[in-house]
């Protein structure tokens, strides 16, 4: 099969376009997704292809539009809400957490909220503290939400199509730095399952678990490590809720060493859950070294480029962390 190389943003747009063609009930709503094409260019030409009804520009009202999506989902539509920056989910938390996440359970099971909420996440663009957060841990902690962080163009498409199949609310956090990265993406409407971690690279010396933009960074680090004689297994958990620990536990059994890499601040972040799961199960006995968490610093994201870089794990940090872990220092 020949490679079909498109960007992460294009892969998302393709998934949405295909879903909209296949299913009349799918529509998008969000700020500046119409003629502007989306703040990060994701919706692109969808407005011209599907019209202003189905690619629906909204006023600046995050709470209102997520609420509108919930209401539409309750009665048979399949809305895809774009929140312009994931930081602005803070405005809409009530509708996400108190409504969307709970309705199916709380109202007795007859209603459900088949809604997808997409938002660009993460730092690296110099947009400072209110436009650079990684908030996946909040959502992962909320029963009733599924949380997905695609790390590659192929997963961006496949996971989004799975999210659209799901009769429950799914939060898809896309990393801003990935939008312009490219990779092979099949044209057909394939699904990447929600709830299945992905072993991106095999290796027997240590296990690196990563999310989002840290996946490719970890793979790059693994390649550098390989030339230093260290073989790292890199696992992309992809879906934070539900979390699939199987390949992680299996890899630890082989490597005995676990490094957890996330961009979000460390304290009470997602990777704490992975460490906790390991500490709770038999996998803890496989560990030959303490777990190493390499996370964002517990600070707001600063503006200055050198400051911004200094607060989230960079390639060198991962390489160095892995070396230290393997050498037991």
């Amino acid at each position, binding site marked *: 099969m020949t490679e079909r190389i498109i960007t992460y943003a294009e892969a998302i747009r393709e998934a949405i376009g295909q879903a909209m063609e296949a299913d009349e009930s799918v529509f998008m709503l969000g700020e500046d997704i119409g003629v502007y094409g989306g703040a990060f260019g994701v919706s692109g030409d969808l407005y011209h292809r599907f019209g202003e009804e189905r690619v629906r520009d909204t006023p600046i*009202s995050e709470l*209102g539009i997520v609420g509108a999506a919930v209401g539409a989902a309750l*009665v048979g539509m399949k809305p895809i809400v774009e929140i312009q920056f994931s930081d602005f989910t803070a405005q809409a938390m009530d509708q996400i957490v108190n409504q969307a996440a709970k309705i199916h359970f709380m109202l007795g099971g007859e209603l459900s909220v088949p809604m997808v909420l997409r938002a660009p996440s993460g730092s690296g663009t110099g947009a400072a503290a209110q436009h650079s957060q990684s908030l996946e841990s909040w959502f992962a902690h909320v029963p009733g939400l599924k949380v997905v962080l695609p790390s590659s163009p192929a997963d961006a498409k496949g996971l989004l199509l799975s999210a659209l*199949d799901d009769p429950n609310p799914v939060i898809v956090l896309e990393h801003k730095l990935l939008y312009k990265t490219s990779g092979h993406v099949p044209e057909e409407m394939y699904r990447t399952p929600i709830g299945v971690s992905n072993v991106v690279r095999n290796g027997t010396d240590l296990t690196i678990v990563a999310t989002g933009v840290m996946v490719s960074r970890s793979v790059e680090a693994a390649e550098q490590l390989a030339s230093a004689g260290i073989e790292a297994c890199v696992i992309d958990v992809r879906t934070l809720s539900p979390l699939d620990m199987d390949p992680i536990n299996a890899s630890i059994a082989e490597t005995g060493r676990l490094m957890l890499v996330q961009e979000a601040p460390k304290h009470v972040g997602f990777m704490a859950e992975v460490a906790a799961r390991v500490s709770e199960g038999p996998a803890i006995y496989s560990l030959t070294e303490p777990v190493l968490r390499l996370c964002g610093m517990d600070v707001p994201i600063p503006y200055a480029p050198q400051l911004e870089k200094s607060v989230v794990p960079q390639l060198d940090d991962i390489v160095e962390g892995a070396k230290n872990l393997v050498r037991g220092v």
Partner: protein
Amino acid sequence: MATITPLFAPEQGTISANKEAASASLESLLAIRFFEEAVDGLFARGLMHGTMHLSIGQEAVATGVCAALRKTDYITSTHRGHSHCIAKGADLTRMMAELLAKQTGYCRGRGGSMHIADVETGNLGANGIVAGGIPIAAGAALAQKMQGRDNVVVSFFGDGATNEGAFHEALNLAAVWDLPVVFVCENNKYGMSFSTTKSMKVEKISERAAAYGLPGVTVDGNDVDAVFEVAKEAVERARVGGGPTLIECLTYRHKGHSKSDKNLYRTKEEIEFWKTKDPVGIFETRVIESGQLTAEEVEQLTQKVRDAVRLAIQEATQAPDSDPAELLSSVFRQVS
């Protein structure tokens, strides 16, 4: 099953001028009243748990508005939602079962009073979050429009809810998208303990409609006919693509805000005054005086509704308790 006669909307004229409609509306008023009195009693006797927000005194709003709706029309409701639920046609047994935390309740005992929904009658759910249902109503209305259906959505909420950002955002969205939704504010003068004279500086909440370019109207919320009339106009306008309306219904709750209210923020005199404006009594008198129903017929109807509520309690009490076993598998709708 313990149900009452579905509301009946006269094509022309007021409700009280039409025997069938008058009778159905009176049933609705009484069902709300008796259901909530029963609930109040069960609570007092320690047979019900959690908390409860009663709409005794406000029955005319739900009754008048729902009379203007079709069965396929939708509503979103509030923490004070029994009235909307009953007026839209819910089964009293399943409601009571929910309050009694039974497996046969509308929410299988998972939601309780604040979360009753009824897909059958288009009730998209009570809501424990003040103003939480308003954007949801806008979204359901958007769906009707996109699906080419002519259903209307009514969103009920209180005076206090109009101070929430959700109210503002939802009304604006509904306005700019010309959605088939009617916003019904039950102004009972207080958001919990806080008087509207202190929580806002407008004389009438309906004035807030202008901020969204919408029509706003204030009506006597204790008068079924008056409520029905403005609701009918708004619903019909919405149904034919004329966009949303904000209706303010002036009313009053006789009981405390919830189970823990000591009524320190309002006077006995005020409560007594409003009891003289009891919507149920007013409507009864009107339909008897206008000759649509005889005192005897009213009496029969009263008995019928009392029986229905009694049956609801009985059936609900006998139902099995809600089941903890299936909780974990109920968080998500299972992918089929």
